[in-house]
């Protein structure tokens, strides 16, 4: 979903694909309807993953929409044309109204996806979700080994996830297994695939970490080497040949290792509409981190107005906003200038070309990050000096407080745990 789920997951997860729709090259013409609604029901989460794409200051936005408000969001989005719906978070299952929301969404004609860590997914809830019309479950893992899974999520959840996966299949749900990849688990990609096959997953998303949110704070520890990526890709290619019929495996190379950027969310304000736990509408999972963007809230503005009229959804829509070198680039319709969050984080201006592109004057910044990661000894020393920053309430409050005082440098101290 791209995750749309995970930073996308995915993005997301894989975004809505439209092989039959033909090229979408229009700039101004008509704004297409949103197709993919991501309902981030809560920022609360029993896991504390070091690569979470939730905002660093999520504790500042903890007032959640009510069940009735979410039902209004579902109705409005469906009326606009949204058809894929992801329930995500945080961990959506910490709310006890997921079943009610799924039932409403199913009645409205959405294809409903639950994007979960599996924590809280009891047999009782699985049965109720099935009865409510849930179409699919995406279960996240952090690694194929208990040790690394539990370390990276700063919890003890591996055995539980194994049991949940079996229950999901017993209840007859199609299942996507999602695993976020980085330096620590790329060498285990064969084991991760074997695990997904053994669990009966129909799809496996090997989502390389996208470096914003918590992953950006932990970039030095998580960034893989080019060799690790190439080896993992070869393993994936092998399994696609031998097991491609049984399980469809997605593997997307992380942006930093490419010379051309990917389309941000398949086009800003073109497909994806996210709604955060507090009702803030998001053109991309990570849009909260972009300064100068006033994000509308579903509590004050209709979804129709948000999608078609709001400054936030129009700011980077189409091609009119592009600066050089994108404006005169013949490839601009392919990538639409790339990722706005990456542009902001690495160049200081969200309207710049994504510096992943080697035509960007800032491309050297990306090259340097990759080079730094290539030196294994350097990475080891980083890991010694700067422990991984786990996503938890205490760290979020510290970061949020630091961000409110621009002159104070936030010391990114984590729990101090080591892999």
């Amino acid at each position: 979903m791209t995750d749309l789920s995970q930073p996308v997951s995915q993005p997301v997860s894989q975004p809505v694909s439209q092989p039959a729709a033909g090229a979408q090259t229009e700039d101004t013409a008509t704004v297409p309807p949103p197709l993919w609604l991501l309902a981030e029901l809560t920022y609360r989460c029993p896991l504390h993953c070091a690569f979470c794409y939730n905002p660093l200051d999520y504790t500042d936005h903890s007032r959640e929409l009510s069940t009735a408000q979410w039902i209004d969001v579902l109705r409005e989005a469906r009326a606009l044309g949204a058809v894929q719906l992801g329930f995500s978070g945080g961990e959506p299952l910490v709310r006890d109204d997921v079943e009610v929301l799924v039932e409403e969404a199913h009645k409205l004609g959405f294809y409903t996806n639950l994007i979960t860590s599996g924590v809280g997914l009891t047999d009782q809830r699985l049965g109720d979700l099935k009865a409510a019309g849930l179409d699919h479950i995406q279960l996240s893992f952090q690694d194929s080994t208990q040790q690394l899974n539990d370390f990276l999520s700063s919890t003890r959840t591996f055995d539980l996830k194994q049991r949940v996966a079996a229950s999901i299949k017993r209840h007859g749900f199609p299942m996507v297994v999602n695993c976020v990849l980085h330096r620590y688990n790329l060498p285990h990609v064969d084991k991760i695939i074997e695990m997904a096959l053994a669990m009966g997953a129909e799809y496996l998303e090997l989502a390389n970490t996208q470096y914003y949110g918590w992953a950006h704070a932990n970039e030095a520890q998580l960034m893989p080497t080019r060799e690790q990526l190439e080896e993992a890709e070869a393993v994936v290619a092998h399994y696609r040949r031998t097991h491609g019929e049984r399980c469809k495996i997605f593997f997307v190379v992380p942006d930093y290792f490419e010379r051309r950027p990917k389309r941000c969310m398949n086009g800003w304000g073109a497909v994806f509409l996210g709604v955060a736990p507090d009702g803030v509408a998001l053109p991309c999972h990570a849009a909260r981190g972009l300064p100068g963007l006033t994000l509308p809230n579903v509590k004050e503005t209709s979804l129709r107005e948000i999608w078609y009229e709001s400054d936030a959804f129009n700011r980077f829509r189409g091609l009119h906003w592009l600066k050089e070198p994108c404006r005169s680039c013949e490839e601009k319709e392919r990538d639409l200038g790339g990722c706005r969050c990456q542009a902001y984080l690495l160049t200081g201006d969200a309207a710049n070309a994504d510096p992943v592109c080697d035509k960007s004057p800032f491309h050297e910044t990306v090259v340097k990050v990759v080079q730094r990661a290539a030196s294994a000894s350097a990475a080891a020393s980083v890991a010694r000096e700067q422990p991984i920053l786990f996503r938890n309430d205490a760290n979020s409050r510290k970061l949020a407080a630091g961000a409110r005082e621009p002159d104070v440098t936030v010391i990114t101290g984590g729990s101090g745990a080591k892999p």
Partner: protein
Amino acid sequence: MNDVTRAGGATQAATPLTIARPFRLQWEPAQNAHVLLYPEGMVKLNQSAGEILKRCDGTRDMDTLIAELEQAFNTTGLGTEVRAFIADAHARGWLE
């Protein structure tokens, strides 16, 4: 699904044609098209693909399907095209 004349014969004679799980076919007014939905994804179908797949509901075999389409569109000789599309749809996992 852009081009229904592609791909080879592979006839499933009297087997009823059915959309396979986890795919779901539905009409989307906002897109003015039939779409196939699956976990976190969607395929937007062109008109001929939509007309064929909406009849793959487990009640028709290949010959019935072709006859019905020819009647609905008041034409003949759709057999080759439809068989090719169905073979392609099978290969994509859309049909059981």
